[in-house]
């Protein structure tokens, strides 16, 4: 197995830690006085955290130049979905016992549940279309579809915000809101990245020159990977 393979295994193991912790605490009877609340809060927290990590991949790749980071992103996103499924199942099964009347009344009464449910539906669609096969099938539309991660995370923070409003304590939702705002701001500033970081721009220009020279050297022969295109700016 190559280095990236090992890294994926390690990431998988680390991502399972919050789940394993819940299982260990659960069998040890250590989930506190209200285990269902504990599990709901914990899985909700990790869903939001993993969503934030997926959105950190692109900025981190830009800052470090580590392109391979993007190859870990799908797993991180699927772990966000994994914790969202646990969160959702805990609510529908152990909190409400599939009592549809109660659930509908609850959704009506508490808009934060509606918001969370919408976010969960979008995440399901993203998880469903996360395979290589689906990516190939959807082509260009795939990227467009997966920009839905942005509304998802905003709904997720809103869900948490409205929940914590019941306790009159918004310190944790604020923290997530700031992190998400910073990650979204990065995307807004991305087109101006080269101007904001001139050093990087110089490197880019140098890279482009090298590419041009290389292309000139093999002039006449079409690029086998990118027919019709010799250079491509990132």
């Amino acid at each position, binding site marked *: 197995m190559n280095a990236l393979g090992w890294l994926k295994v390690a990431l998988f193991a680390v991502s399972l830690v919050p789940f394993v912790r819940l299982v260990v605490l659960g069998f040890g009877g250590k989930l506190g*006085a209200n285990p269902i609340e504990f599990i709901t809060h914990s899985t909700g927290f990790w869903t939001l955290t993993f969503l934030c990590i997926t959105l950190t991949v692109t900025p981190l790749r830009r800052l470090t130049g580590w392109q391979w980071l993007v190859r870990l992103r799908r797993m991180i996103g699927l772990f966000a979905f994994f914790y969202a499924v646990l969160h959702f199942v805990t609510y529908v099964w152990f909190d409400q016992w599939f009592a549809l009347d109660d659930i509908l009344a609850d959704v009506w009464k508490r808009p934060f549940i509606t918001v969370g449910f919408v976010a969960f539906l979008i995440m399901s669609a993203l998880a469903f279309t996360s395979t290589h096969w689906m990516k190939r099938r959807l082509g260009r539309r795939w990227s467009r579809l997966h920009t839905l991660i942005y509304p998802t995370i905003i709904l997720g923070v809103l869900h948490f915000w409205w929940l914590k409003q019941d*306790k*009159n304590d918004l310190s944790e939702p604020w923290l997530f809101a700031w992190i998400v705002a910073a990650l979204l701001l990065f995307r807004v500033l991305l087109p101006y990245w080269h101007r904001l970081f001139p050093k990087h721009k110089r490197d880019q220009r140098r890279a482009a020159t090298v590419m041009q020279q290389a292309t000139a050297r093999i002039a006449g022969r079409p690029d086998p990977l990118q027919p019709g295109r010799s250079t491509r700016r990132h």
Partner: protein
Amino acid sequence: MLIRNPDSLHPAASEITPQAVYRDRRRLLAAAGIGLLGLGAAGRADAQQSVTGQSSLARLPAKPSPFSTMEKQTSFEDASTYNNYYEFGTDKSDPARYAGTLQPRPWTVSVEGEIARPKVFDFDDLLKLASQEDRVYRMRCVEGWSMVIPWVGFSLSELIRRVEPTGNAKFIEFVTLADPKQMPGVRSNVLDWPYVEGLRMDEAMHPLTTLTFGMYGGVLPNQNGAPVRIVIPWKYGFKSGKSIVRIRFTEKQPITSWGRAGPTEYGFYSNVNPTVDHPRWSQAAERRIGEDGFLQRKRKTLLFNGYAEQVAQMYAGMDLRTHF
């Protein structure tokens, strides 16, 4: 409309206490009868294994109370580690974690306002004011969970009678300690400190309203409102102020801390009522903490938390939707 339910104090068949628990309870009552409520060392292990549990804090001898429910009691561990006490943080595990800094002695309670005999009570005098009773009450939190807790205390009316309220005394206000040195949460601005709660005079005089000094046979743990708190079993838990330093009799309805934080959400009365929802969630059902473990469904919430027979007449003719 109020519906008087004469069965409100009697458990449904499904709620009947198992025999093992009942036997244990009989032993407890017998022990109380001979003034040994704090069980001997030999009995302790048993008691801890039972659902009752025992406080490990200093004993507080008391006689049994006719107001007690026979329902299965929440374990001492759950009742002392799952608390809302914002002066120590908003997470339910915060009070147990951080309340160690609270100094429950020396302690005084200033009783003042519209009364003939205002007085600053030393805690020990207050403790001896009337005979202590074991009162097992249901406790329903506005958040949708509940417990059954054996409190130790006496009716607040015992104190009220002794300070002789004037004709102007229409309400009573309870003020909780707010010392940032002892209470880390007071530095945050989640609520206006000090924590203020209040009752109408007839509610305060109601025998169920308890000036509380202990629980589970011992003195109150800090996180449960040591050294003295109020317990009003037919109202949502937040009405029952903890670590009381001042009791004031007023002509005007007090402005409570939660009332100030959310006037449309936390009414002055805040009587437990399954048909009057909080604006953001239903109050129809509740999760009984520690009830047969993880897979227990929620139970239906009872009007006035099951104390309708005792308290409903105080609200006769009032629209409980307006006076939520």
